[in-house]
């Protein structure tokens, strides 16, 4: 992204390809994801979120930029680190936090939990917790669109560590040979759980370098700049929609917290987090908005509105009862029940 300094004042603003409204939306999404994730973290330490949870703190620009470029019918497939992508598609915070808190008001009424957020009405076609499994699944959804002549795109998010499992490679080849309208988005946050992916991977860019092997363009972008993500996504989605086939986008980013709630991330070398905090996507974007002339008061209003939304959502969730016992045996089979015998 060119900053205002390199540009010609007013002309730059006029020629900019991203409208002020979209910029503010991109900022709003990132801020809301950040605040909601922080709240999830707080609730976790208050023992109000059980099980596990994987935050996207520091990775918000990818979720925001991608979702902003999507159209309503487009389908997102994400991982257990999927709160951000779910929120970015417009799912209300209380539905997400409710599921994290395993309450009846949650997206799946507590039956799925934090790793499986799903909201079909928003195009969130599930969050998958077995590494790599959803890349072929996204291919299948894209195959359906191609077969039925529908123009939606399937967008599949995963991490750098995921590039070393077989399903990743099977899916890339499959998408390439069938020219499927699927966009793979690798959120390269440098680590799989607690190990540097670079230490266990044969190539430097685990997704992009492999994409080349399947005939796809090698795309590596700054995943902490929502504008860059948004522009790259628009191009990839347009290509998919017009029958041009799949893309792989490797987004460089960093998670500010540990892998999951239990992880204090002690394995990180000193200074690494601090360097990445300098490149905090929200910090970058706040400056960007100011450079493009968005008044400070407007920026503040977005930030305050986000805080208010998170507080409200938290209260709704706290007031919601836990999932009722009768849910235990519902929806095992399509008849709504669990009967396996007569």
């Amino acid at each position, binding site marked *: 992204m060119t900053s205002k300094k390199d540009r010609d004042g007013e002309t730059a603003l006029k020629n900019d390809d991203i409208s002020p409204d979209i910029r503010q939306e991109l900022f709003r999404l990132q801020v809301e994801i950040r605040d909601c994730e922080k709240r999830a973290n707080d609730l976790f330490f208050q023992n109000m979120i059980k099980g596990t949870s994987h935050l996207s703190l520091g990775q918000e620009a990818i979720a925001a930029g991608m979702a902003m470029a999507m159209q309503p019918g487009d*389908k997102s*497939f994400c991982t257990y680190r999927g709160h951000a992508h779910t929120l970015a598609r417009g799912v209300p915070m209380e539905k997400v936090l409710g599921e994290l808190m395993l309450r009846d008001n949650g*997206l*799946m*009424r507590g*039956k*799925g939990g934090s790793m*499986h957020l*799903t*909201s*079909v009405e928003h195009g969130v*076609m*599930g969050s*998958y917790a*077995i590494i*790599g*499994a*959803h*890349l*072929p*699944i*996204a*291919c*299948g*959804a*894209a*195959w*359906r*669109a191609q*077969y*039925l002549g529908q123009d939606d795109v*399937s967008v599949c998010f995963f991490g750098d560590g995921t590039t070393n499992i*077989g*399903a990743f490679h*099977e*899916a890339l*080849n*499959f998408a390439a*040979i*069938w020219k499927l309208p699927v966009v793979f988005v690798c959120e390269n946050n440098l680590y799989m759980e607690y190990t540097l992916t670079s230490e266990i991977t044969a190539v430097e860019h685990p997704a992009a370098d492999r994409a080349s092997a399947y005939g796809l363009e090698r795309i590596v972008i700054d995943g902490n700049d929502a504008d860059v993500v948004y522009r790259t996504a628009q191009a990839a989605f347009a290509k998919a929609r017009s029958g041009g086939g799949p893309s792989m986008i490797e987004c460089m980013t960093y998670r500010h917290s540990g892998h999951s709630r239990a992880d204090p991330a002690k394995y990180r070398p000193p200074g690494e987090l601090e360097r990445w905090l300098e490149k905090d996507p929200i910090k970058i974007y706040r400056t960007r908005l100011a450079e493009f002339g968005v008044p400070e008061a407007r920026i503040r209003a977005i930030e305050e509105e986000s805080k208010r939304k998170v507080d409200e959502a938290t209260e709704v969730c706290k007031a919601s009862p836990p999932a009722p016992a009768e*849910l235990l045996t*519902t*929806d*095992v*089979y*399509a008849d*709504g029940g*669990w*009967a*396996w*015998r*007569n």
Partner: protein
Amino acid sequence: MAELTYRDAVARGIAQEMERDSNVVFLGEDVARAGGVFKATVGLVDRFGPLRVRDTPISEQAILGAAMGAAMTGLRPIAEIMFADFAAVCFDYIANEFPKLRYMTNGQLGCPLVVRTGNGGGARFGAQHSQSIENWTMMIPGLKVVAPSSPVDVVGLMAAAVRDDNPVIFHEHKSLYATKSEVPDGEIVDTLGTAKILRPGRDATILALALMVPRALAAAETLASEHGIDCEVIDVRSLVPLDTQTILNSVARTGRLFTVEENPRLCGWGAEIASIVADEAFWDLDGPIVRITTPHIPLPAADHLEDLALPSAPRIVERIARVMNGARR
């Protein structure tokens, strides 16, 4: 009415459903142009075109994953896993993905697909191309599991499986592909979860599945003619849902239960049925429930060894006659 092989019944069943519903699509390795390694899908690509009948790379995870993604967004895919043993390389979909989708999403998504696969032994293929894996799939909540033994059941159960809104694992038996019998003309649609009494009898109930069905029937004839034991033979057909009522009613009449299972002994499908019968029909029983299974070994390739391993008609006769004549085992 015409004679049809079990192999041709597969293609007929798929064709019947593809004809009816344009959302039914079919994918797998060598299934289109080559007509399948078992030649069970010959002619489908000519009839329905390469967009509906698709050859895939050797990517079992991609095959099942793609089938799932298509199923959850509106298609009704049939996916082939060539040899049932290969289910092990894509078991994530069978165990973790298909069967849990509906539950985990609180009913937001479903997975209406069929995985058809060449199951079972008898072809001298050795330990990695001969297994009976129906029990691997039976133990997972959320799946339906069928294993037809005759051409007419292949057509009817295939139709039922494709029309079902759940993931169905459809075990075709490799050693039955060449067998033939009469199949009525016109549309055939059967019902999942129904066992079939193939031979009524008074003295003992024999449960069998797939290749074990013709062997159990042959054994029953010998038991009647040579030992004066009149056996009722039930083709279980569907492990999930399980037609417990047909089984329990039969045991109530005969008082004796034998299972004939091709799977290795431990946790074979008959163990679950034996436990149900012990729980719910104990006082109907006049003697122990006896399971006749493949021993708990990998399958050998050598013909005489494989024949020793799989339950055969003579072995079924010998075991049932011995137990019915008062032996404890």
